[in-house]
């Protein structure tokens, strides 16, 4: 029987409705053999964490193109911490270089800005469980 695949939640917090990128990443990860749950657009951080907990996700990818990433991602990370969920979180979208340090400081494992190649994200995700 096929055993559980690693489950990755790709989420779009906040009011931004642009999800072409999120869908491309979701499909690329599927093609690498992951079970990818896409949350759809306009999710509250609370809703995203509920999904992560119910589904017992192995990894969370956040996408934001609206510019509100600092506030939204912070809220997501705060709730994750409160709920004691310890999974790797990566982020992508229109994120300026100068914000990366801040996002890493709140616990985001890796940030992918504009111009990122899909392969880079795949490579990053593939490596997440190799160490363990």
């Amino acid at each position, binding site marked *: 029987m096929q055993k559980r695949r690693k489950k990755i939640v790709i989420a779009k917090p906040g009011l931004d409705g642009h999800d072409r990128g999120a869908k491309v990443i979701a499909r690329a990860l*599927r093609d690498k053999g992951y079970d*990818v749950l896409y949350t*759809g657009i306009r999710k*509250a951080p609370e809703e995203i964490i509920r*999904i992560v907990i119910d589904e017992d996700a192995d990894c969370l990818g956040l996408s934001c193109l609206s510019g509100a990433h600092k506030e939204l991602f912070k809220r997501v990370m705060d709730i994750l911490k409160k*709920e004691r969920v310890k999974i790797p979180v990566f982020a992508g979208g229109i994120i300026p270089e100068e914000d990366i340090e801040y996002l890493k400081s709140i616990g985001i494992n890796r940030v992918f800005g504009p111009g990122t190649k899909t392969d880079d994200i795949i490579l990053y995700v593939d490596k997440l469980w190799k160490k363990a």
Partner: protein
Amino acid sequence: MEKGIIKRLKKGDRKALAKIITEIEKDYNKIPEIFKNEKYEYPLILGITGPPGSGKSTLIGKIIKHLKDIKIAMFLIDPSSKLKRGAILGDRLRIEEKPGDTIYIRSFSTGNTTSGLSFVLPAVSRLVKLAGYDLIFIETVGAGQIEDIICDFADKTYLVIQPASGDEIQAIKSGIIERIEGIIINKSDLSGAMSMYNIFKMIYSDKFIINTSAEKEEGIDKFALQIRNDLKDRVKLKNRKQRKLFELKFYIREMLFREIDKKININLVEDDTDPLITAKKIAKHMLQ
């Protein structure tokens, strides 16, 4: 497995429930161990099936707020890739849940079962019963004519279709339609919805048939009422023996299918023998 996690599960702890499901997904052999000291019990199981895009997820997503007083679990199944083995789990995004709702939702990939159900589905159904859930909705992969294993597993199954999906001849064909409890003609804001209703009502006068528009939230209350009746109507539920028989057949079928997939290869093809003769020989051997 974490100590005391079953105890937490029984108190209705969602995190414990989520973690145990993962444990089972990782190692099926844990199933008997988990239930060793537990009663063999299932909640009411309602199957939701129908072609891809007919609105199954949206429909059950809209029903939550009509059934707030009931502890519901939803299992959403999407296909695994036969080529790359991954899956897009894309049902949950259509479901409106609010933080604080008691509902528990979990997405599954088929993992290439021949049934199109997840191999752990019977076990996780019993798990949510332990956690105090009274009702499970199981949304199948997109399906339509003969994929009726959900009718064997669920207590009752509803078929969700959309307008203009066929004439009378389609409606009288053999298959899943004979075995379901009701037909939901969703997207009934589109044209052809009423004639679809009339066709089905004429042929299946004893079945529950309604028009809904999940998107516009029309007819959802009628479906919710039907579900409340299903909850009361305990007589028709599958009993313990039937449930165990289903599990037995289900597991054996999946295990054999896996064996066939693995072991029947090009080396078994015989040049000068009819494939049917070879097949009979191998099948006899396998079942010994």
